């Protein structure tokens, strides 16, 4: 067994050397060293910290919940339209349990929302029931499950999960990317204002320098979402239940709930929907939101087709992330719910 022992020892050596390397480079800002720029901001944690700062100046009375497709709704405009103090809690890749967890977490910290605006993507009710991102943030998991805190075993499991995430090809590539950024700086992909509003700094920089590859951004995005919808067989029962509970809770808390179906750029919609059940899923989502309207009096807006409200003509960031002019059009529609 000498050969096996030597091989195992070398594997441990590889794992240790790799671990030390990514710890030192720290591409996602999870460890202490800050020698290299961050490649990817863990936005759930970032939003939680931002909200804590935001709440020091007074509680939020308006919450925007949703995925990154809701991040572009500007709180200052919402404040003006609704007369409330909004914080944008949109987080990347969010599914319905994220909305529920973030709402619960904000309520635990004194938020007293009069308005809750929820951007519902069809895939936020995805049948895969993968709760990875939300449950990877201990505070959100605690909030989602209504617990007082985590047990030691759960904390250990979280730590193990985080360690495992490091041992992925994507993490290694991010490390190389971070090293590259150190020597050839470009703006980060995005940053958040203190009220949670997103600024796509890399795309803006590329636009300003005329290097933004619009067709590629649209094409890559269409492929990504086509895959996501291809894997979606229906609306998750668990996730429907999370959304319904969120609406019921917010209504119980005295908030007006506004649900809106997020758009896909019409230019890429045929590609996104190709070989998927997207039209059927869209119809199911719309019908489910109507049910929530009937049961809880939530306002519902079907904004899936931006051409209908004049938001398709702009210069989107990709097939689902709309720009400022489109955000203005969306706000104009949502304002009808006041």
């Amino acid at each position, binding site marked *: 067994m000498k050969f096996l022992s030597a*091989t195992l020892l070398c594997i441990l*050596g590889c794992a240790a050397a790799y671990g030390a390397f990514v710890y030192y480079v720290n591409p996602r800002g999870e460890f202490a060293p800050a020698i290299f720029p961050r490649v990817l901001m863990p936005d759930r944690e970032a939003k939680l910290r931002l909200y804590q700062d935001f709440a020091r100046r007074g509680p939020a009375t308006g919450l925007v919940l949703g995925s990154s497709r809701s991040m572009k709704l500007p709180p200052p405009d919402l404040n003006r339209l609704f007369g409330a103090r909004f914080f944008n809690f949109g987080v990347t890749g969010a599914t319905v349990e994220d909305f529920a967890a973030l709402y619960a977490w904000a309520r635990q910290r004194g938020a007293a929302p009069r308005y809750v605006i929820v951007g519902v993507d069809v895939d936020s009710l995805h049948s895969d029931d993968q709760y990875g991102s939300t449950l990877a943030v201990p505070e959100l998991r605690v909030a989602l499950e209504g617990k007082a805190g985590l047990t030691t075993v759960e904390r250990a499991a979280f730590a193990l999960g985080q360690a495992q995430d490091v041992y992925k*090809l994507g993490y290694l590539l991010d490390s190389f990317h971070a090293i590259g950024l150190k020597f050839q700086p470009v703006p980060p992909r995005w940053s958040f204002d203190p009220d949670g509003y997103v600024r796509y700094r890399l795309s803006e920089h590329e636009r300003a320098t005329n290097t933004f590859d619009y067709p590629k951004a649209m094409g890559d995005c269409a*492929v990504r979402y086509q895959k996501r919808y291809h894997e979606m067989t229906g609306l998750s029962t668990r996730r429907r239940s999370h959304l319904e509970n969120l609406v019921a809770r917010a209504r119980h808390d005295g908030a007006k709930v506004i649900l809106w179906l997020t758009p896909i750029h019409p230019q890429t919609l045929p590609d996104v929907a190709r*070989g998927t059940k997207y039209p059927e899923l869209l119809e199911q989502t719309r019908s489910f939101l109507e049910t929530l309207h009937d049961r809880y009096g939530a306002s519902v807006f079907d904004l899936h087709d931006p051409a209908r409200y004049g938001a398709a003509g702009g210069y989107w960031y990709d097939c689902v992330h709309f720009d400022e002019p489109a955000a203005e059009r969306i706000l104009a529609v949502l304002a009808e719910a006041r």
Partner: protein
Amino acid sequence: MVFNSDVFLLAFLPIVFALFWIARTRQQRYVLLTLSGYVFYGYWNWKFCFLMLFSSLVSYFAALGISRTETARGKRAWVVASVSVDLTLLGFFKYYNFLAASLAALSSKIAPPLLDIVLPIGISFYTFHTISYIVDVAAGRVKAARNLFEYLTYVSLFSQLVAGPIVRYRQIEEDLEHIDGPPREDWIARGIGFFVMGMIRKVMLADQIAAQINPLIDGMAQLSTGAAWVAALGYTCQLYFDFSGYSDMAIGLGYLFGLRIPQNFNSPYKAAGIRDFWRRWHISLSTWLRDYLYIALGGSRGSALRTHINLLITMLLGGLWHGANWTFVIWGGYHGVLLILDRVLEPWWKAVPRPLYQLATFLAVVCGWVFFRAPSVGVAGEWFRRMAGAGNGATPAGPLAVLWVWFGLLAVIFLPESWDIRFGTQRRWAPVYAAGLFIAYLFMKQTKTVFLYYQF
């Protein structure tokens, strides 16, 4: 459970490996390997462990019955009874709904109702194991195993349980008999080498190519001619690296436990002629079909016409074995016709320069994979239309997809079969294996996939 998962690599394998070498006696090791096979299988769905156990016990006792029966007629009765049970189980779980749906398409009056049947993973493989065992015992090629756990180890060996290779009992009987021997340093090194090569083929080639071509195949109706070819060539590479990768890992695991599992691939895309292709592709299946079906049908002992009919039947059933779908039947029939043409045109092929013959063989195989991969005959037809330049699809393949397919084709040409690699057994090679495994692990964690042959 799949080989490319944390639960297998970090828990199951180390525990079973350690216990195996701690155990000293044959019986302890048989019991351990049997239990580990059932745990491995039950991790997917424990209820189907009983089905596998039932199938194993039927063939085990049938083989004992055969060995105690003097007359040929009596032996035949045992074989028929045992094989019938196996085929009934396989037929019900794998083909009942296919038959019902096919009959319903003809007439709803004659069609039985569709049932909510879950296809037990690996049933096609372990059924072929048990059938070959029974037939071999009846033919006197092997003696019936007396030790129940020795036989259960053979059927439920986790390394080849759910996706092959289809190992005959006689091929590992000797190793099973000497399973209580001490570890052999050279086998351990070979085992690690095969396993690492298999992982690399699976996660660094097959899965990466799959990520590029699956969206193309899903959107077949929109594809340009070039993209349809990229999809076909990409799938050709993906399937080979996926399945040969799995086979390498199975062989490597076998070595780690002192069992030599036979070769399953031998550079199939370098074959000259379809007969040569089937001598190199999924060798354990093609030889199984040859020995237990083609020869049983009469093989090439009769007239040329009879030989061709036997070939066609064998390949049609071989196609159907892969899955309950008309696409697999057509794929099998297509290869049957190609085999016949290969025989009939043999003198002409001999005059063709070998590289040209190899290229023609490769292209014929690529076209066959279209049926194999397409979810329906309609999609296969659409795919062929796109490849032929018909239709008005204009979506090109992305540059990354093209790049990966080129990379895959180059790997097909230049990457040696693991059997051709002389794995270093000195300790100075350990860092190479470790680095290969570690890098493959990073890829594995990035994309969670199962092996393509798990569905069969």
